[in-house]
């Protein structure tokens, strides 16, 4: 079962019906549905794994909150260590497990949430959760189980204490958000994927203009794939009256890499900031700026390797770290220069920074297609080679796939421009229904004629 499979659309109404009927057992309904969803998506072992580690995390949480000093730290590290071992196991299985790969679908995301819970208890940000059922639902809630958003414990658990009746407004807004996400995936991400594959090829031997154009198309694919999934998760949760964290905020308008990370995969980047970067920066604070820069490089290297243990992803992470460190070092000089040149707050400067940030992100992302060090080298070499073939690269975009993807992008830009000015879920029928119809049509044709690939982030 997944958002792109037909079975989900039989599963969801049943869960909604039970949820509406069994008002006193709502957490149980959602937890049962989530575990069933998990088993159907990745086999019966996964829900058992979640119940076992989740139950242990919950019990250890009480120990953390109830002790002090060295014992408190020991209980914390027992819980964090257990969760990290599981994550490490899922990421390194290819190294020690020769046969068919075990599936660890969704494990990263419940591990992140478990660590957030234990750390928040340790830092006295919250009290331990009294209900084991509520805690397990926090880890297992099916709309976000497979690839996030990464929820904060307090914000989610508080909502479970007063689960509302499904309201018309929630159902309408949730359905619309879900359909919009599906449209982004089926119409834009899938078409862009075809183009990106053709442009990036096997990386080895690809000429420069193919790689450069491919990088831009791939970042568009990744955004529409991942933010599309997130829209579907947020919309699906909204059907039950639950609010999930927003994951994207117009990332391609970012004016710096730091700004980009405040706008891209937000639930994860804030998790990394609060549970990895800041604690490490505090540990290294006696080294002043040197400590901050070191923490930045270490954290982004780990973030790269979290995606997959591959050379190219490490390189991607190191580029991100380098961008961030350069930003920190340049900032005082940059602002002085802009002030002196009279460029401060100017539109021109903003446009320049947006363009540079975007191209830097594209460049770094190119390396995720290079699993080995040899291919990382090929990527560097390829970028400076074969620029005489630029016309050929552009011709890859001369087809219906590019036209459909561009049309979808234009719609997304229009939606962004209208954001905050118009609430479609509250608009009159004459506006709403044509939009529903167009979305349904786009999804139908996209999914029916071309099929859908797995969501990119489900593999991490």
């Amino acid at each position, binding site marked *: 079962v997944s958002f792109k499979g037909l079975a989900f659309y039989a599963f969801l109404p049943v869960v909604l019906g039970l949820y509406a009927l069994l008002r006193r057992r709502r957490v149980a309904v959602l937890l049962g549905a989530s575990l069933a969803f998990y088993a159907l998506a990745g086999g019966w072992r996964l829900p058992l794994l979640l119940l076992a580690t989740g139950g242990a995390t919950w019990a250890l949480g009480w120990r953390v909150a109830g002790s002090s000093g060295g014992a408190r730290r020991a209980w914390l590290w027992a819980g964090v260590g257990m969760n990290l071992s599981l994550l490490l196991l899922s990421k390194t299985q290819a190294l020690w497990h020769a046969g068919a790969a075990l599936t660890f679908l969704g494990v990263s995301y419940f591990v992140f949430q478990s660590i957030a819970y234990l750390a928040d208890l*340790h*830092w*006295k*940000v919250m009290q331990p959760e009294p209900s084991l059922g509520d805690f397990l639902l926090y880890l297992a809630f099916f709309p976000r189980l497979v690839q996030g958003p990464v929820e904060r414990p307090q914000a989610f658990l508080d909502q479970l204490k007063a689960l509302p009746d499904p309201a018309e407004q929630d159902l309408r807004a949730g359905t619309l958000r879900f359909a919009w996400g599906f449209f982004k995936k089926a119409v834009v991400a899938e078409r862009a994927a075809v183009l990106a594959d053709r442009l990036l090829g096997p990386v080895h031997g690809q000429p420069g203009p193919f790689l450069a154009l491919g990088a831009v198309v791939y970042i568009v694919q990744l955004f529409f794939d991942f933010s599309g999934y997130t829209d579907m998760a947020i919309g699906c949760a909204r059907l039950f009256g639950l609010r999930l964290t927003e994951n994207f905020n117009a990332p391609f308008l970012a004016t710096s890499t*730091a700004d980009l990370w405040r706008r891209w995969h937000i639930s994860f980047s804030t998790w990394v*900031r609060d549970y990895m*970067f*800041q*604690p490490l*920066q*505090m540990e290294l*604070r*006696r080294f*002043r*700026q040197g400590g*901050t820069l070191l923490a930045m490089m270490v954290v982004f290297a780990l973030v790269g390797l979290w995606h997959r243990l591959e050379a190219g992803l490490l390189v991607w992470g190191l580029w991100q770290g380098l961008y961030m460190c350069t930003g*920190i070092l340049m*900032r*005082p000089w940059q602002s002085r220069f802009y002030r002196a040149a009279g460029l401060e707050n100017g539109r021109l400067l903003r446009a320049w920074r947006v363009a540079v940030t975007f191209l830097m992100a594209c460049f770094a992302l190119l390396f995720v297609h290079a699993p080995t060090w040899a291919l990382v080298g090929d990527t560097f070499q390829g970028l400076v080679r074969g620029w005489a073939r630029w016309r050929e690269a552009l011709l890859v975009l001369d087809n219906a796939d590019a036209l459909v993807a561009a049309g979808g992008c234009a719609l997304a830009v229009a939606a962004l421009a209208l954001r905050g000015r118009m609430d479609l879920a509250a608009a009159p029928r004459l506006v709403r229904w044509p939009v529903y119809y167009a979305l349904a049509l786009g999804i139908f044709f996209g999914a029916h004629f071309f099929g859908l690939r797995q969501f990119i982030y489900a593999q991490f």
Partner: protein
Amino acid sequence: MITERLQNVMRDVFDEPGLVLRRDMTADDVPTWDSISHVTMLAAVEEEFGIRIEMVDVKALHNVGDLIDLVTRKAG
């Protein structure tokens, strides 16, 4: 007295010579005060007052007033 010394530290770290502290002030009020410079500032505060700030203290800080109270408690 503590507020004044704190103000000098923050003026220095955030490169804002005209910064005047208020108890209800937060990072949103100072453009160069972000999550990265936050820890740099705390390290400078530790040095200025000869105190040690732990993660659990960091998590309890919501505005400048909290920081003044923390320093007062630790240095007092």
